């Protein structure tokens, strides 16, 4: 493997740590959106709650898809460390495909809600829902674009240390999005279905 000579060996740890600090600040962003959602959840202005409109098995499939993509991004890092090029590609491609599938399902859900007259402008509860889930979806979208750029970088530079580090950052980002989704699944959809 060709080493990146412009950077000392321990610098990669600092980059990873810096990325970790960014993720933890993103946690605070999501915390404020979760708090907003918790407060405004019931303010539907007489309309049914999002949870009453949501199709719970559909959301379960979204969850399982994102969970599987979190596993495949782990495989990507594992194969990249073993320098198995083909497997790294396949695992990354599977991650991006699952991410795209998740996004399509979410957009379908959003489009369906808007078409039925339950857009984010209808009431405070829907605004909070679309902001929270939409912000997560935006993260997944940007992550998918980032992953596509990494595919190109893998093709051009192969097992370069810089690309390996970027893959590691990307995997942290992707796992983090999965963790956020667990809480959206629990607090927005499951709690909503319980009417609490």
């Amino acid at each position, binding site marked *: 493997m060709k080493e990146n000579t412009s950077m000392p060996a321990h610098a990669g*740890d600092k980059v990873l*740590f810096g990325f*970790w*600090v960014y993720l*933890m*600040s993103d*946690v*605070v962003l999501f*915390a*404020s959106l*979760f*708090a*907003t959602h*918790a*407060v405004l959840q019931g303010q539907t202005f007489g309309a049914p709650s999002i949870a009453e409109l949501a199709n*719970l098995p559909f959301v*379960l499939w979204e*969850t*399982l898809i994102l*969970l*599987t993509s*979190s*596993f495949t991004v*782990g*495989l990507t*890092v*594992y194969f990249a*460390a073993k320098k198995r090029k083909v497997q790294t590609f396949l695992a990354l491609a599977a991650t991006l495909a699952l991410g795209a599938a998740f996004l399509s399902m979410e957009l379908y859900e959003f489009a369906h809600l808007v078409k039925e007259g339950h857009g984010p402008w209808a009431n405070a509860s829907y605004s909070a829902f679309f902001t929270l889930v939409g912000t997560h979806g935006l993260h997944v979208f940007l992550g998918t674009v980032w992953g596509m750029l990494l595919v190109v970088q893998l093709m051009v530079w192969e097992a370069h240390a810089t690309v390996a580090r970027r893959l590691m950052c990307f995997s*942290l980002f992707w*796992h*983090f999005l*999965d*963790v956020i989704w*667990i*809480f959206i*699944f*629990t*607090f927005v959809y*499951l*709690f909503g*279905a*319980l*009417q*609490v």
Partner: protein
Amino acid sequence: MSTLQNYSIGFLLSIAFTLAAFWLVWQHVQGAALFSAEKLVVLLVGLAVAQLYVQLICFLHLGAEKQRPRWSLIIFAFAAVVVVVLVGGTIWIMYHLDRGHTDLSEIYPSGTVSPQTQDD
């Protein structure tokens, strides 16, 4: 422990926790409730936190730091405190504000002040 083993364990446990949480709620929605809604809330939070723990260890490698002090863990703990203060504090304050508003109808039973139409 190899990382592949880590990822596999994390994946299987996460799937199990997700399906368990879904199944509990689905039973409840179908009317065949095993637990009351209050107990279910505690169970669901427990399952979510368990899954958070599994993913932090198996996927995000938290606690696997070799250097001391464990800066990643410290930053994580700080973020966790901010989240608890932010979310817990917001719900606490807004819940009491909400209660304060509904109490108005008890203070003015004649209906001279309606909480629904009153401006803040």
